[in-house]
């Protein structure tokens, strides 16, 4: 199978969906002309040349307005894909995301559809400090009416983005800034990955590890090392946090009896707590050890490289956590 960068896989998804459906259009800051031709990570590269400035629409720096316009366009028959450059900037648009996009269908008694995708990226690791490195996925998981997607590989990114664009609901599609430059196999031709289906990235019998974004990759690296010590880790990527494929996680825990959950977001109030509680509710009798979390420190992301690394779970933290319950 061919290998693509994560950014290129996303770029392909956008191109294919724009070719397939003329209602799909892109809007965001610096998506048409920045860098090598679109987007600070290249996701929209060259699309303006193919589809023109109406469908690949650069905007002023106006996050609340951009999302609001996306909501209005979505409810009147278009399928906008909005880019918010950093998830940190979604704080400026929370009314439009939480009070408008997420609730419109329900408030109107089911008489509206809001097929809006908000693409953004999160995560630490590049020295971008506290206002450009947060992982805020839990905020959106907490809002009924939204779907939340967190792809960790190029193939998942492409298939999930295509599904998100075809979905009739507002989808917060969260990429990770460290993953754009990673490569992986991507199938040729047309395919989609449904929202709400987890992926077992590595099978194992001893411990279940659930990670998102970079924690999938660190989990896989940890599993490789632990295998040499005879500990077989099953690595699961939920891929979407709402809808959450808890069945796949529960099935794995019933097999392994042990669960470790990892994400970059601060541990306090994070998605790991939600997953842990759902496993408690559905598989308590199968657990042979307490559920352990390997999450971000409860602090803003610091600038200094040593401090930043300490704020984010690393491979060795995962290994330590797994060994503590095996």
């Amino acid at each position: 199978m061919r290998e693509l960068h994560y950014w290129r896989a996303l770029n392909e998804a956008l191109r294919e969906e724009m070719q397939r459906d003329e209602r799909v259009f892109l809007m965001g800051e610096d998506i048409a002309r920045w860098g090598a031709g679109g987007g600070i990570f290249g996701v929209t590269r060259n699309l303006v040349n193919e589809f023109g400035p109406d469908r690949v629409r650069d905007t002023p720096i106006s996050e609340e307005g951009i999302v609001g316009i996306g909501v209005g366009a979505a409810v009147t028959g278009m399928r906008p894909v909005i880019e918010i450059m950093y998830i940190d900037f979604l704080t400026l648009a929370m009314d439009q995301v939480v009070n408008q996009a997420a609730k419109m269908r329900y408030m109107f008694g089911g008489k509206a559809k809001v097929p809006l995708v908000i693409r953004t990226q999160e995560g630490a690791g590049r020295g971008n400090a506290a206002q450009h490195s947060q992982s805020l996925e839990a905020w959106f998981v907490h809002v009924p009416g939204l779907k939340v997607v967190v792809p960790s590989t190029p193939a998942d990114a492409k298939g999930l983005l295509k599904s998100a664009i075809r979905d009739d609901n507002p989808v917060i599609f969260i990429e990770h800034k460290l993953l754009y430059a990673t490569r992986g196999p991507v199938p040729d031709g047309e395919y989609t990955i449904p929202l709400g289906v987890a992926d077992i990235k590595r099978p194992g019998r001893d411990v279940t590890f659930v990670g998102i974004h970079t924690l999938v990759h660190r989990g896989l690296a940890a599993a490789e090392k632990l295998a040499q010590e005879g500990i077989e880790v099953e690595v699961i990527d939920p891929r979407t946090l709402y809808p959450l494929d808890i069945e796949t996680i529960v099935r794995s825990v019933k097999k392994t009896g042990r669960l470790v959950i990892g994400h970059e977001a601060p541990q306090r109030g994070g998605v790991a707590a939600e997953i842990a509680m759902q496993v408690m509710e559905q598989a308590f009798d199968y657990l042979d050890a307490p559920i352990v979390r390997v999450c971000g420190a409860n602090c803003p992301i610091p600038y200094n490289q040593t401090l930043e690394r300490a704020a984010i779970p690393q491979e060795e933290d995962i290994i330590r956590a797994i060994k503590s319950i095996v």
Partner: protein
Amino acid sequence: MAIHVDRRTLSATALLDMYRKMVTIRQFELKVIDLYNEGLIRGSTHTYIGMEAIAVGACAALRPDDYITSTHRGHGHCIAKGGRVDLMMAELLGKATGYCKGKGGSMHIADVEAGILGANGIVGGSIGIATGAALSAKMRQSGQVCICFFGDGAINQGILYECANMAAIWKLPVIYLCENNQYAMSTHISYAASVPDLSIRAVAFGMPGMAVDGMDVLAVHDAVRQAVERARAGEGPSLIVANAYRFEGHNVGDTQVYRTKEEVERWRERDPIVLFRTLLLEDGILTPESAEAIEREVAEQIEAAVAFAKASPEPPVESLLEDIYA
């Protein structure tokens, strides 16, 4: 006989329809106050009494397929755009037959099929939606326009600055119609705004700004008609400030200690319905008998709406989790 009305832009039929809608709004709202005081309407509700000329004058300039977005004080907009009073009343009583199946209530009445993109509980919250609907209309080349109703409170919200700018640079077919009823809850506009004439803010947005007498339905209509023509011609957005007054409190139950009875009485002397009726009588479009017949017919229609609402079933509890996602 004095001729006040320019029949080149409004036929006698159109004028009578406008008058009937103003009467309908007034009687609907008076009934709402009664029902609220009887405890049949929950939460908070905001009446449009005294402002009927704005919604009716504006919506008379629209095609049936044009859009409006509305506010927390939205009943008048809905009726003016062609909303059904029986479905509105059922919604206010929280019934399954209401516009939103009882899930929206006063602040979220919408009829997307009729171009009514919703009342809104967030001050300024619909400005992005209106601008997005206009972008959508432009991209689909549908010839539709959108009127964005908002109050003097919302004119200080940041989203207006963002969206008006984008509407201007992209020449979107949207009319920002500020209903200056003098008070945002208890705060007078002379305290809250840096300029006495709110319409001059249009200069900063790069669009025409007009101030009109919001108690004069024909003045409102004339200004909006020009703005709609400009929007449909692809020349972009406008800001219209209709200076008016709400005769009742901010919400039903407002103590109104922030204004004097004398001030209210002064404004009530320029009741927009009385002003319009006088014109129509003098022009011979209305007779005392036909005016009385309209009052009677509207009263019957409102009574029928209340009866329909009262007789309608409550939404089933099972509907709680319906219509969150499409």
